[in-house]
């Protein structure tokens, strides 16, 4: 039977890693902290019944809390790490860094597919464990993983290496371009 001391020890030891998982799911540190605490509160409710390996159990709660948030939540302001005006659709400046593009593409994946990728490739869970966490079959995990990876590969923003070098060269003058673009927008 697990007790409060166990729970406190678990929170202290595992919170940093779980917070990172939460961040990869929701892409925002404040929401990640909130998501983590929500999951831990839920975990506490049934802490006495958790077996020897609470990690998988709490990961499962975390992911399910995230998925239910995505279905229900209203989130007001849109936190961005770039000013909105740089994201004009015709303007690929700022989208050329492959990692930035990949990060942005991940953000647009359906929540369940994103969760599968985070559990598989960050938490390093097996397909069986992911299936257990998401309450689905191993086949579904496989198909969701391959769909998500396919989406990331064929995403229109993923500039092929040859094209990337051309665009990257043009970003050298990004600040000049951005400045003039923005000035036209303002009253």
């Amino acid at each position: 039977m697990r007790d409060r001391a166990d729970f406190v020890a678990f929170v202290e030891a595992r919170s940093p890693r779980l917070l990172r998982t939460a961040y990869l799911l929701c892409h925002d540190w404040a929401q990640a902290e909130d998501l983590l605490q929500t999951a831990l509160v839920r975990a506490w409710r049934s802490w006495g019944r958790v077996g020897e390996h609470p990690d998988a159990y709490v990961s499962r709660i975390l992911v399910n809390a995230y998925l239910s948030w995505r279905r229900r939540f209203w989130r007001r302001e849109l936190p961005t790490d770039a000013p909105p005006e740089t994201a004009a659709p015709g303007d690929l400046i700022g989208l050329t860094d492959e990692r930035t593009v990949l990060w942005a593409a991940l953000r647009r994946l359906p929540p369940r597919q994103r969760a599968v990728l985070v559990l598989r490739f960050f938490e390093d869970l097996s397909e069986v464990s992911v299936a257990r966490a998401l309450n689905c079959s191993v086949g579904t995990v496989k198909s969701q993983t391959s769909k998500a990876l396919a989406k990331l590969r064929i995403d229109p923003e993923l500039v092929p290496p040859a094209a990337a070098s051309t665009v990257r060269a043009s970003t050298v003058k990004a600040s000049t371009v951005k400045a003039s673009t923005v000035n036209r927008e303002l009253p």
Partner: protein
Amino acid sequence: MTRTVRDLRELFDDMSADAPADRPRRIDELDRRIRHDSRRRSTTLALAGVAALTAVTVLIPTVLLPRAPEKPQETMATPELPPRFTAKDGAEYRRLVTTTLKTKTKGEKKKSVTIPVSGKPLDVAGLCDAATGLTERPMVLVNGKPNHRGFSDCTGKADLISLNVPKGAKEATVTFDTTAWGCGRKKGEPCPSIPIMKPADWALAIYEWTPPARPVEPERFKALPREREGMKVAGDASGVWPRQKSFKLTVTSRGGKLGINHVCTGELAERLLIRYRISGDRPTYTSRCYPLDGSTDPALGRWVLTEVKVPKGKKITIRGTMMMQGGHPNRPVRWSAAVYVLP
């Protein structure tokens, strides 16, 4: 392992590596939440009993009685855009109208709503269906004229932007229009083809808000990092809008390059624009403030410096002017700007 998977693993590791310092009080916060959760659950159980009794005594007879015909709903209610909510700084939001623009499923390109204008500030919220990639975003027009700001990219989260209504107006017609996206704002301007843009369905709502009774001080944060991308801080300034609306810095860059960065806190941080005028005949540079979300240390952010070429070794004056889009004095924004130079 394909390159994408390897990249993905590295990306996950790197992007989550900048976690804010672990909260020593997380256990205390959890304790509070657990106590609150227990109380709420007990109350819910009690209320469930009361509700069951109410259903038997009140609702069932109501269902059995003939009902008056319901008025047709003019707009579709969207649970994600609530009728009322309170912002973190206490500003009260009240929804005036909701509508939808179903470009993806119904091919709708344009929708207009008319709202009463009481003189209180107005915001418009837009929520597109998630995971649609780069999407067509509706342009927002007020009485036929473009609003001063449009929606950000479609991410599945609601975006809340200020609505600019002419002074003295008693009502306004707000139009959401995807037909003109990317085609400029002048009539007849050629419309380039943007094949990567996908249509999306949008839930939209217009809110009227009441600011807090007194100014709510935005969160304080640490100074901007002294070094960034190989450049060092040559000057910085900070303040709180609307009390401080401008600054002036004089710097010298031996390497012939400046880097500019700024961050803000406050509920309306993202609405503050900073216009930079750099001495010489350079065009002004304007940028929206980067909100510091969930952190008080700007060094944790992955901000990219805006680089400007300047004459080597010459004194350069940088003037910054704050411009607020849809703000209020009782919802101030704390800002901090720094200019970096190549040593």
